[in-house]
């Protein structure tokens, strides 16, 4: 099932800094969750095609027409820190892409 390095890997992808204690707690927790979801594997799906969506729609598109956007005030209303018209974030090293 899930081991420590799986948890560390997923935490890194989610940009979460976990303590050792948290990892200890998450290993069995995540394992149990996967086990529960894994029960679905018992269902015979040999006659069912891969399904990504259940609504029978295709080719839903819009015309290329520009419409007014939000105001900058509205767009940045929830930003914790602003600098002029820009949103300020901590430096993140180019990683993972």
């Amino acid at each position, binding site marked *: 099932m899930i081991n420590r390095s799986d948890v560390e890997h997923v935490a890194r992808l989610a940009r979460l800094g976990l303590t050792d204690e948290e990892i200890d707690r998450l290993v069995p927790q995540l394992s149990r969750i996967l086990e529960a979801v894994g029960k679905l594997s018992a269902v015979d799906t040999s006659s069912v095609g891969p399904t*990504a969506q259940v609504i029978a729609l295709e080719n*839903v*598109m*819009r015309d290329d027409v520009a419409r007014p956007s939000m105001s*900058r005030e509205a*767009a940045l209303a929830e930003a914790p*820190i602003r600098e002029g018209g*820009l949103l300020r*974030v901590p*430096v993140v090293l180019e990683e993972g892409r």
Partner: protein
Amino acid sequence: MAVSTRYETIIGIEVHAQLRTESKMFCSCATAPPPGEKDEPNTRTCPVCMALPGTLPVINRKAVELVMLTGLALDCEIQTAAVRFERKNYFYPDLPKGYQISQYALPLCANGRLEVPVPAEETSVSIGITRAHLEEDTARLQHGGRGYSLLDFNRAGVPLMEIVTEPDVRSPAQARAYGETLRDILRYIGASDGDMETGSMRIEGNVSLRPIGTDAFGTKVEVKNLNSFRSLERAMEFEVARQADALERGERLVQETRGWHETEGRTMTQRAKEEANDYRYFPEPDLPPLRPSEEWVARLRASLPELPAARRARYVDGLSLSAYDAEVLTADLALADYFDAVVAAGIAPKSAANWVTGEFSRLLNQHAAEGLRSSAVGLRPAGLAELISGVEGGKVSAANAKTVLAEVFATGESPKAVVDRLGLQQVGDAESIGAEIEAVMAEFPSQVAEYRSGKPQLFGFLVGQVMKRTAGRADARLVNDELRRRLEE
């Protein structure tokens, strides 16, 4: 660093091009500020492209068509089975949703080919196109170098096309030629501005070397941060030399991403690939699949304009232009269209090419700083055609025609108005020219006598005096004939 001849260069190229649409990929925000207005950060966003909860994306039809059109221009197979958008998951501040909507398993276009002329190697190469797919651009992140970064979401969600080649490129010159050829095509079909400087076209090169005669690929290095086609070529040259050097010394190369530093002229490690990227792609549940119909593809195929290579061939084979003229004309769609219109107005192709690639282009470049393009010049092709006819019919001298052209560019007047205003109609009748010649011969009797006693070099002086008296408006051929006839009497 000398490039070793023991290794074969293997390059694959990835291009990202912003598509020329009015609105974003999955929402109706504009992709650019209104004409003439400054691009103010964070003024073109909405709940969809800011990834606010409860919003749903809707596909921009034009963006899909531009990718298919590109695929058709690159000889790709267009996917007519269901095309899925997929989520490419990663966390980065420039990605509002925490994933980018992209295409993975089934790209819109695949298995294409592009014939690339490589002038530097006096050859042309055929580059395989692995895929061309549709995705969305990220926000613009400015690194301030002050412990924080600044975000502008105007670019977030702008339609982006990714075009990936097979590892078929064998030299830095070929890499550059591929980039330029592709850019020309994207511009011709109106898919993208293809501007490396402003970032509407971005290129990455994957470089590896392998001993000549072997099949296995060597360690691949991805080079980013290329801001021009020249940087692409230089970066590839540097990387080939660096890798050959390392291999010669028996060093092991690392698979990594390196950034090109323009001023230092070298690539530097950006990120080593310690672990493989883990994007956890899965089908985008918020978008129904796309199934391009055969009719849709056929309609787009029919709308494909004449591509640069076909146009060059038509100019050389059909209109007997030189390869050079054909190249200059077709490098700029607007210029090629302008040339075609001048020819359509009845000017011989060779003559039209001379004027359009010569004086007209020179003035265009001179005014480039003022944002003038051949599509925006006040001088319509018919006006230039009229001026060329005037020169060929002896109504205006070639020298004065250049003056007229410069005036037209400066004032926006018609060529005819300029000719009339400056009184530049050519003096072309033998009688009035004869009168001017008589006057010059009367004014310089000693020079006339010296010429007659065997000093032919004085002929030019006398011609010059006639031209001076007529302010350059005299038909030079007629002046020559008439003057010689009188001197020889």
